[in-house]
């Protein structure tokens, strides 16, 4: 089985031995897997989604919903409103559909982890800094303007607009090589410019003797006398969802969970782990977009998908402001109105620029195993989160007008469809009601958080899931706070630090200090 990739099969059943099994192949799972594989361990990665190469990527949004999102993108969080969750279910996970943005973990976050969660011995500045540096170098993290054929008007106008407002704003840092400016990050990069996990780390794990099981949702972590000894599940056809052969992976050194902030905690619950903090402290960066309509063409779809960002308001207001080229199909679905009014409003799509406020929300939610193998996420942004969003949206509206927009479309229920430069105050006074805003959740954290307090954490500073030996969590579930920046780089760094500790402790145990 060395170097193998096993996809859906109706039969026969599959049984594989490994040193480590990693459940999930996104930024956390792949980052941990490559460290362990390079250290000489046999690693098997198990992924619920299919392995799709660039030539397999869908073109249309319906195809994206079918091929890259779990459950056709119908994952939602519910509270007092319904919030769509943007996640991928494919080999490479979120690294396939994100905008390739890599931001270093802010120093205040590392300090908070130390002071409030007792993680300083593991995730200190030195270790985090070294891991972040190494990953940035390996994945070719560069300024968007350096490695793209066309930066894009959408990005340039946000850069200029926020800079004119006196806010520190910059091109994003991304892990790409030879970006063709097709603004299609969300649909998977057909040019393989994005350094997604299935383009680099995962094939390397295979070349080092590891294996990958795709179309393979894990249903249970197998334990014996409190020790995690592997995982099991059944293959599932990615199109028909028909169940196939059973699979089982025996891992003699341990199980690493990286099934995402919506997948890890429910799987731990289904596997009989019962801890007071499991499924709690679930957090996110909810975001909402605001559109500016310009007299001249902007053309959202020529340039980097998300080329500009500002975290000038991160500390004061918990805000990240960024550009975003949402595909035409999604813009059509999310533009206000219906009937002739809606079609008419879409005629100026080439003149639209779209920018987003992502909120470092204070809200805490829960994630639990649902019925029929599903997941139930309860989450409700707080009034303070809504106030932050109002501030961010108002700043973006001002930036649009600074750049010459003839109107801004706030997309808030209760406000006019379009407002002028004298009406930005309407956004600042917009309803503090989640149902009035079009929130989307894309950065997710928690559910199995790390910490020193057993009542408030699932994973201890020793990196084990409490009460279960050889069971670890290496994805965003473990992060005890939000970040206020894109989490991919942080997730990778934390996963690699944990994996290195595992490799070192195993080595010490088996070969002496």
């Amino acid at each position, binding site marked *: 089985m*060395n*170097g193998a*990739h096993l*996809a*859906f*099969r109706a039969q026969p059943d599959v049984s594989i031995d490994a*040193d480590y099994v990693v459940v999930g192949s996104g930024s956390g799972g792949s980052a941990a897997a490559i460290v362990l*594989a390079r*250290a*000489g*361990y*046999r690693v098997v990665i198990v992924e619920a989604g*299919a*392995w*799709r190469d660039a*030539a*397999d*990527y*869908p*073109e*249309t949004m*319906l*195809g994206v*919903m*079918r*091929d890259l999102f779990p*459950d*056709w*993108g*119908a994952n939602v969080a519910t509270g007092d409103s*319904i919030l769509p969750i943007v996640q991928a279910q494919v080999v490479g996970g979120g690294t396939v559909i994100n905008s390739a943005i890599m931001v270093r973990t802010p120093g205040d976050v590392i300090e908070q982890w130390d002071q409030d969660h007792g993680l300083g011995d593991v995730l200190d500045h030195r270790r985090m800094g070294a891991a972040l540096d190494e990953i940035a170098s390996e994945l070719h993290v560069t300024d968007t303007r350096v490695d793209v054929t066309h930066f894009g008007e959408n990005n340039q106008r946000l850069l200029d607009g926020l800079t004119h407002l006196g806010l520190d704003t910059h091109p994003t840092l991304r892990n790409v090589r030879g970006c063709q400016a097709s603004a299609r990050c969300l649909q998977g990069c057909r040019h393989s410019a994005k350094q997604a996990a299935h383009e680099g780390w995962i*094939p390397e794990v*295979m070349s*080092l*003797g590891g294996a990958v099981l795709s*179309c393979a949702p894990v249903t249970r972590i197998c334990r014996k006398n409190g020790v995690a000894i592997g995982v099991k599940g059944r293959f599932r056809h990615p199109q028909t969802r028909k169940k196939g052969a059973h699979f089982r992976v025996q891992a003699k050194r341990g199980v690493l969970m990286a099934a995402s902030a919506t997948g890890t905690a429910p799987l731990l619950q289904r596997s009989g782990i019962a801890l007071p903090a499991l499924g709690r402290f679930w957090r996110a960066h909810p975001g909402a977009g605001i559109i500016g309509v310009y007299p001249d063409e902007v053309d959202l*779809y020529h340039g980097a998908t998300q080329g500009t960002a500002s975290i000038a308001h991160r500390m004061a207001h918990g805000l990240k402001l960024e550009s975003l080229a949402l*595909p*035409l*199909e*999604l*813009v*059509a*679905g*999310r*533009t*206000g*109105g*219906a*009937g*002739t*009014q*809606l*079609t*008419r409003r879409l*005629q100026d799509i*080439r003149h639209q620029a779209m920018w987003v406020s992502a909120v470092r929300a204070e809200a805490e939610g829960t994630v639990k195993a649902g019925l029929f193998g599903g997941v139930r996420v309860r989450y409700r942004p707080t009034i303070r989160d809504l106030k932050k969003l109002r501030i961010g949206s108002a700043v973006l509206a001002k930036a649009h007008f600074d750049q010459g927009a003839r109107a801004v479309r706030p997309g808030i229920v209760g406000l006019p469809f379009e407002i002028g430069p004298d009406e930005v105050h309407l956004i600042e006074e917009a309803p503090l009601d989640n149902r009035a805003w079009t929130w989307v959740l894309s950065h997710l954290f928690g559910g199995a958080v790390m910490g020193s307090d057993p009542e408030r954490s699932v994973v201890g500073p020793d990196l084990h899931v409490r009460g279960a030996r050889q069971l670890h969590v290496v994805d965003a579930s473990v992060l005890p706070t939000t970040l206020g920046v894109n989490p991919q780089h942080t997730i990778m760094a934390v996963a690699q630090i944990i994996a290195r500790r595992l490799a070192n402790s*195993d*080595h010490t145990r088996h*070969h002496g200090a």
Partner: protein
Amino acid sequence: MVVLLKWVLAALFPSVDGLIGLDSANLSAPLQRLSKEATLTFRLGLYLSAFAFIFSPIVTLGWPLPALWLGRSALDRHARAMAGHRWYLMRQAMLMLKTVGGAIWGADPAVRGQLGYAPYGHDPGTFRSDHRVDVVSQPQVNP
């Protein structure tokens, strides 16, 4: 259901001022694909939303008629009223319908051509089957 959905989506994205809407687009193929391939949850949400649209003119216009019987102008007013309705669930039902309608409308080659965007290719729907790579080193814990 496909016929009903076609009618509802065409009402939400009608042609106007020369821009092609879903009333002139090929809806059958994507909707059939959707009814065959989408998850049960997704389809259920979509069908319930379509029913909500059809049976809510009593709420939006005060008319005790299904939307299927409305004239063009009244249907347009119904669609608009439902999209901005004060009841959150009504707006959510419209969001579901508009998400699917928008996905089909924005991918239609004629629409894309009119807006100056290149047409999409087909969705291959393929994925990597079993595959083996050359192993450059056998696993062996580094000393």
